[in-house]
């Protein structure tokens, strides 16, 4: 679905949610009343927003997390990791969601946005862009060449080649699409990190540096992804569970289901655990999540979190 996106759309939501955002920015963690509806604790640990306008759903999910200003201080350099590599239906983040995040970063006062994985101009053809958004996209910086860095505490991985901007940016925002992945059953924020890592390193996630015929690819890949996530935890993750491929992923083709949902969290494991549930997986069955939790990257125990759900 392509929806028209404008500054007015963003401002409208800022106005609607103004009270909640103000409360969240100043009274983080305190029980407050939002939108005159139910008693809530803002900010949420995990925000789930459903609706057919994906741009608005993305904005609202971040508002429920306390607003983008909570994460992006004025003058910050933001690293954006956006799953945009493929072109088949259900395999990439809806551009409306990415644009909403980019706009929120600008309004929060970011001075620079660096794409942590090159995004082709073809990707943005999926969206109707306002002149303002064209301006934002024109300012996005490409990542620098991969550099080898050490991973402390990794089980499979001791080092990887990664774009240095991932580690150097002030704010790291991960925007995955929740979809089927034939290698790990499910992919979300944790797996999306591989977008900032070189193809050469990524192949060792699958094959190892010393491939053996009897390797358990699923277990090895799952552990490697968990190891890589020791590099840096996202400041914020916003997951796309709108039109996603549920079989034949990550490349497709395959059947696409529309869950009309955007999920946000500061915890990538929790985000993925919720996303896995949307696609019908039990989080504890997805080895990548268990391994990441063991590393202390986050928790897949959703019962321990404050989750706010809204429908637009």
């Amino acid at each position, binding site marked *: 679905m392509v929806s028209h996106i404008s500054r007015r759309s963003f401002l409208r939501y800022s106005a609607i949610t103004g009270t909640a955002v103000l409360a969240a920015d100043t009274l983080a963690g305190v029980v407050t009343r939002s939108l005159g509806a139910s008693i809530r604790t803002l900010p949420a640990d995990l925000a789930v927003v459903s609706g057919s306008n994906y741009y608005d759903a993305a904005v609202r999910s971040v508002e429920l997390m306390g607003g983008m200003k909570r994460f992006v201080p004025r003058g910050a350099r933001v690293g954006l990791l956006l799953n945009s*590599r493929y072109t088949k*239906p259900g395999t990439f983040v809806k551009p409306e969601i990415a644009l909403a995040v980019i706009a929120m970063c600008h309004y929060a006062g970011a001075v620079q946005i660096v794409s942590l994985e090159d995004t082709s101009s073809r990707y943005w053809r999926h969206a109707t862009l306002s002149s303002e958004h064209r301006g934002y996209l024109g300012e996005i910086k490409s990542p620098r060449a991969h550099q080898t860095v050490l991973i402390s505490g990794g089980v499979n991985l001791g080092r990887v080649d990664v774009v240095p901007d991932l580690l150097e940016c002030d704010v790291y925002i991960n925007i995955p699409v929740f979809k089927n992945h034939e290698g790990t059953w499910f992919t979300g924020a944790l797996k999306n990190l591989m977008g900032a890592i070189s193809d050469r390193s990524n192949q060792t996630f699958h094959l190892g540096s010393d491939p053996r015929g009897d390797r358990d690819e699923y277990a090895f890949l799952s552990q490697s992804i968990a190891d890589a996530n020791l590099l840096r935890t996202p400041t914020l993750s916003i997951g796309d569970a709108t039109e996603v491929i549920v079989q034949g992923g990550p490349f497709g083709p395959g059947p696409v289901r529309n869950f009309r949902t955007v999920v946000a969290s500061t915890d990538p494991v929790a985000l993925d655990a919720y996303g896995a549930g949307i696609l019908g997986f039990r989080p504890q*069955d997805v080895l990548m999540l268990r391994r990441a939790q063991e590393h202390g990257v986050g928790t897949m125990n959703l019962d321990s979190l404050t989750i706010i759900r809204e429908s637009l």
Partner: protein
Amino acid sequence: MIEIARSAAILPVAWIALTAATPSPSPGQPATLPPTAGEWTRADSVDVYTGKDLFLLVDGGADLFFEYGFVRVLSSEYFRLPDRSATIELYEMESPAAAYGLYTSFTVGTGAAAPVAQEAVLGDGYCIFWKGSYVGMLTAASVDSASGQMLLQLAGELEAEIRHTGPLPGLCTLLREAGIDSRTMVFVRGKLALGNQLPYAWVNSLPPAEGVLGGSGASRYLILEYTDAAAADAALRTAGVEWEKMHMPVTLGSEGKWTIQQREEEVMVLEQQGRYVLAVSGATEKSEALASRLRNTLGGY
């Protein structure tokens, strides 16, 4: 990745590079994608990926192809006036069984059966077919009421380039001849395909083997084929030790059957049948009837 340029000026060089660097297709099989296919015209170039280069095309999805036995893929885009386009990937696998397994892994439970190649499925905006050692995957750039027929027409043109058909895996043939519903079958060759269809942690403890996963809803079954009865028995025992070590909700019955609680309302019962490990979901009369039917079928194989 190798790009086959169609430009006349560089064609000879590219062709030499291609033939030098990639395995030759089997006799009578397509060396490239045709420049035209009915009313469709191919893009100038065809991308060819072999071996581990498949990662460059499908990223982590490549593991599944390797598990089945990947040889190479031809990838390009086709156009049809006034404004239609479709991408095509034609995967060459190591055998018809490998191709059939990949095909079923992508198509089970999706789309509608279509009269193309040996088997085909048409979904919303895509068509996947199997013929011999090949799997074709076509994706329309836009989806509307006409796109399905157009994809079928293009798929028909492309599959005609593949001269040889191939047999089903033996176990699939056996089950089909016994009247087991073929539309729900996935031919698996390892843990990835199996895990994608049966996404439970207990599945990983079973030693890899070829097999068939089938059924639907509360009546699912899994048959894994090992080299002999001793290997099947060892596979189940090895898995049992793992399950207990992982504190999984499993029980071992007096008849050597393992019962696994995979969801609150769903159990799976595993047993050895000759060189097979047979698993059937549910503990109802219906599932027992299915198990009995499968036992009888496997007993004669």
